[in-house]
């Protein structure tokens, strides 16, 4: 009986299918039994010699066997694939605690980082950024700022000179004059830049340092505006919870003069070495622009008033990051600088 032969083939085929171990063997199996010249087609081909009664019965038996074999091979394929994937995944396993591949990205200088914060804080209040020369005239650095030759304030500015009239600026304040010579009120400007003092260096003194000058001039600008603006800045830089102290200080180009301090970041105002046991850290000097300074640039001090301020980003960085030696900044040891990346 052909049907018996078909059944025997089916059993043999299924047994062989179970024995296949990879997709290649599976393909061979498929060709052998289900291919165009495979055994199953062989039965159909041999049907020409069968009686009309037998023919449909055999056809049906072949189809049934075909369905069984196809289902079986699909299952087997699925199983072998998933077994193969399993092997691949196992083989791919890594030690996830190994370090990642190094990425090479640089970083800006810590002072640039502080500059950015300061600029952002003041531009948000309508200030704009200007610059001025580092090699400066005595006229701008001192004389126009109410510091004539022989003024005692000059002893607070140890100055590098090129000649009697040309020097390295000791502060960014000459830019108050330079800006107001060109721009009439309203003025809101900040001027960052390098400054120089001819003094011995130690943990808190550098012969080169950065400064930020600020200037706002308009009608009706008051000491209260100064306080509001700079207190807002201080809290933005050092945290909303900071207390701000506002006290009298002296700079020849402002009157009244102001010193702005925040409560010590380290001891929270209780008193420690960093704040010299005062509880306060000075962060900037300021004041109402001196009437004579306004007159020097042809602005009528009875119509206009303004405030000016100056601060050192190194000091701000030192406070923010607890840096104890100002000389670190321009020694440019990358092991120091990359801590602020």
């Amino acid at each position, binding site marked *: 009986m052909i049907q018996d032969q078909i059944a025997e083939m089916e059993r043999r085929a299924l047994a062989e299918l179970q024995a296949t171990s990879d997709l290649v063997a599976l393909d061979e199996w498929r060709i052998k039994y289900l291919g165009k010249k495979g055994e199953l087609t062989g039965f159909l081909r041999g049907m020409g010699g069968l009686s009309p009664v037998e023919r449909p019965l055999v056809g049906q038996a072949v189809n049934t066997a075909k369905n069984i074999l196809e289902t079986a091979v699909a299952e087997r394929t699925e199983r072998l694939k998933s077994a193969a994937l399993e092997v691949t995944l196992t083989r791919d396993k890594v030690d996830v605690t190994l370090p990642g591949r190094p990425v*090479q990205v640089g970083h800006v200088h810590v002072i640039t980082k502080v500059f950015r914060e300061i600029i952002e804080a003041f531009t948000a209040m309508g200030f704009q950024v200007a610059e001025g020369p580092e090699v400066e005239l005595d006229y701008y650095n001192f004389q126009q700022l109410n510091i004539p030759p022989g003024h005692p*304030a000059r002893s607070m500015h140890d100055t590098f000179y090129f000649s009697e009239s040309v020097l390295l600026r000791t502060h960014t304040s000459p830019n108050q004059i330079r800006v107001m010579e060109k721009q009439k009120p309203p003025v809101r*400007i900040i001027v960052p830049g390098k400054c120089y003092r001819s003094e011995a260096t130690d943990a808190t003194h550098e012969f080169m340092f950065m400064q930020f000058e600020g200037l706002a001039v308009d009608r009706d600008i008051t000491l*209260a505006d100064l306080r509001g603006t700079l207190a807002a800045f201080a809290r933005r830089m050092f945290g909303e919870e900071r207390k701000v102290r506002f006290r009298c200080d002296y700079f*020849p180009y402002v009157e009244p003069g102001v010193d702005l301090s925040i409560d010590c970041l380290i001891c929270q105002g209780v008193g420690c070495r960093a704040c010299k046991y005062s509880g306060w850290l000075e962060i900037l000097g300021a004041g109402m622009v001196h009437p004579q300074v306004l007159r020097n640039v042809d602005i009528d001090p009875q119509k206009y008033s303004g405030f000016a301020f100056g601060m050192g980003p190194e000091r701000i960085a030192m406070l923010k990051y607890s840096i104890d030696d100002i000389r670190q900044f321009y020694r440019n040891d990358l092991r120091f600088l990359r801590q602020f990346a």
Partner: protein
Amino acid sequence: MIKVPLSWLKEYIDITWTPEQLAAGLTLRGLEVESLIRIGAGWDKVVVGQVLSVEKHPNADKLVVLQATDGQQQYQIVTGAWNLQEGDKFPMALPGAKLIDGHKLVDEKAAGKRSGDLLSGDLPYFTVKGGKLRGLDSQAVAVAHLELGISEAFDGIVVLGPVAPVGAPLQEVLGDTILDIDLSPNLGRALSMIGIAREVSAMTGVPYYMPRIAVLEEGPSVAKKIKVEIEATDLCSRFSMMVIEGVKIGPSPEWMQRYLRAADQPVINNIVDITNYVMLELGQPLHAYDYDDIHGKQLIIRRAKAGEKVETIDHVDHTLNPNVLLVADAERGVCLAGVMGGADSEIKDTTVNVALEGANWNAFNIRKTAREMFDKVSEAAKRFERTVDIELTTVAIRRAIQLMQQYAGGRIAKGIVDVYPAPHSHKVLEFPLTEIRRVLGIEIPTKKVVEMLAALEFDVARVRTDGTYQFGQDDNPTIIVVSEEHSLRDGNTLMVRVPSYRNDVTIVADLVEEVARMYGYDKIPESPLRGELPPQFTNYAILVDEQVRTILTGCGLSEVITYPIVSLDDLKKLHRAVSGADAPSLHWSNPNQLMKLANPLSTEYEYMRPTLISSMLKTLSENRRFIEQVEIFEIGQVYLKREGELLPEERRTLALAITGPRLPLSRYNPNLKEAERLDFFDLKGVVEELLRRLDIPAKQITYEPLTPSDSPLLHPGRAAGVYLRQNGQKLKLGVVGEVHPLVVEAFDLPAERVAIAELDLAAVPALMQREIYQTVTRLPVTTQDLAVIVDDDTPAGGIQQLIRETGGNLLTDVTLFDLYRGKPIPEGKKSLAYRLTFQPLEKTLTEDEVTKLREKIEKRLTREVGATFRG
């Protein structure tokens, strides 16, 4: 600046606030209290002892043996100090007491381990223990000033006053609190106990008292004893003098010594101590001469003659110039006016007659002399350079002469020599009250303002509606009115007469500050800025800086900031590779001379840099000691002298420097020593990326080989000039190259490749092109590889340029992906393989179109550079 012992201050004012309140209050008012020094806080087990007997140590010449008592028990003390006598009272440290180790301090200072004040910084301590010294029991320690920390004196035991109760804790006798106040240059008026008492009085509302002065003048008329003439009237506005005869030089009273020591002043003898005491009390520096050393009994205030010599009391010989003001007698200079006395006429142990000077000098001149001739500004000069109340000379010498008679005896000559050519006129300021609101932003009732000013001893008169005004009781006829063309004088104006000691108050704004000080800076409200916003603009220079930082940090470089002041030595190192006498220009952009400081700190920092490269190489070198791979950049100015201008051009410049292995050590790059090194092409890649991202079109940039004379610091075969061609112009943007091996060596860098670039950042903002949108299509791209064979010395840059130009708009990318020499390429030739990417805009490209373009490119290359093509 000034140390104010509260015990001393209490002589003039009742102190109702705690030391902390005083310190905080004064600081808010501009008198910054730097620290509160508590003397005696650590003096446990130190008591008042009394000497019962003094004997020589039987076994040691330099030691003495004291028997002393604390009132209950007898102690034997062996000490090296000889100044105690039977009956003296002194601080006696009992076992367990902690004292400053004076010997160690002095030794450390001598060995150079300590700088500055002896009593600054961390101090060494020792604990008193009983023990034997040269065979004798020593049960306690007799204590010197230094060991207590009250002054630097370490030459004898502290002798206490006779009223000190024996056995009492020393703190009750010598303990004190000292305000250490830092004074800004405008606060000369506060350089005295009275000056501080005035501030405290204004602050606390408690009145202060001037010392009572009563002088018994019994001697001959002073006019017969001395003549004074002011020749240099521009530098001396007042000179007052009294004379006392028959004094006996000796120690000053114990209480005075204690005050002086607490205020950090030396203790010398009664006459000198009194001049210092009165200076600290009232603020007027005084000078005492040995009257018998004044030749001709006359004093002339004159400028020194050139070359004139004076020995000052610190025993330094000075050769003077005519800027120095002298007090001279008939023959010679006897005092550098206002700065320091002369040795010839100083007070000696043998001095009998004293001439006492109180004068007022030109602040500018004093400042100049004091700072040019002395390392340390004297106490007198410190006051004169800040200006001293001109009304004070006679008050102060009367006070001092009274004390001299009291503590040194003698007879006071009648009268005062007082040369005072132009007596003081009181300034009167017109103070429109509206200024308070306008400058401070607050309203203060007029009555309050008047009270505040009165508390500060300003005389205040309210202007009546008819414009007249009247000061109080003693209206001074010699007043000058300073008007700032303010206002109508009306009911809203005050006339304010300024006390003679307030030289710092000259304009209305100064009065506004006084009102703010009295009102309290801490009570000024916070208000945000209002009003019109100024015109807004973009600062392109700073914008470019920020873009450069973003790009370069992304490329792996880190920012440094170096000193713009450099040494000539370092600049010369850049030319180490150049032989011959012809000094090359110092920088590719700067053939001019350098800016040189007239007063550099050292030759290490003397010239303004004309290039960033020397500082970059130094920074590389210093970092290379610790780090294998260093990649840095700096944005900074170079300083280029300009003909006919005082100020140089400060040109914004960018420098980049890289050296070391290309990749950091990792398991992917296990052998750093053998790893590939960063070189010219790494840095050129960064420069290309930078310029591209700064929107400077790549087509306009060329890199051309540099000759050694162009840039002697660079490797002659591995350096390029960076040029920009725009509108038919060729502009040099900078250089990129490897540093010449000899220069690498000169900067102590390891002998390996160092690539450096310097670019003219100042030129960039003008060159940046507007970014214009390029259409992006989804049509497929076609790529073709083209291998070009040319002579080995044909620059690749030109070939790429030709391909680009010929390919036109459709050729969107040209990438060199292989450079090959050797078989089968003929000797002397090289093969450059490019991948060309064609991107159609409107319709898919046909094979034919691409082939045509390729043939066009090939033809042009053959024609212009003799290229042949592979496969």
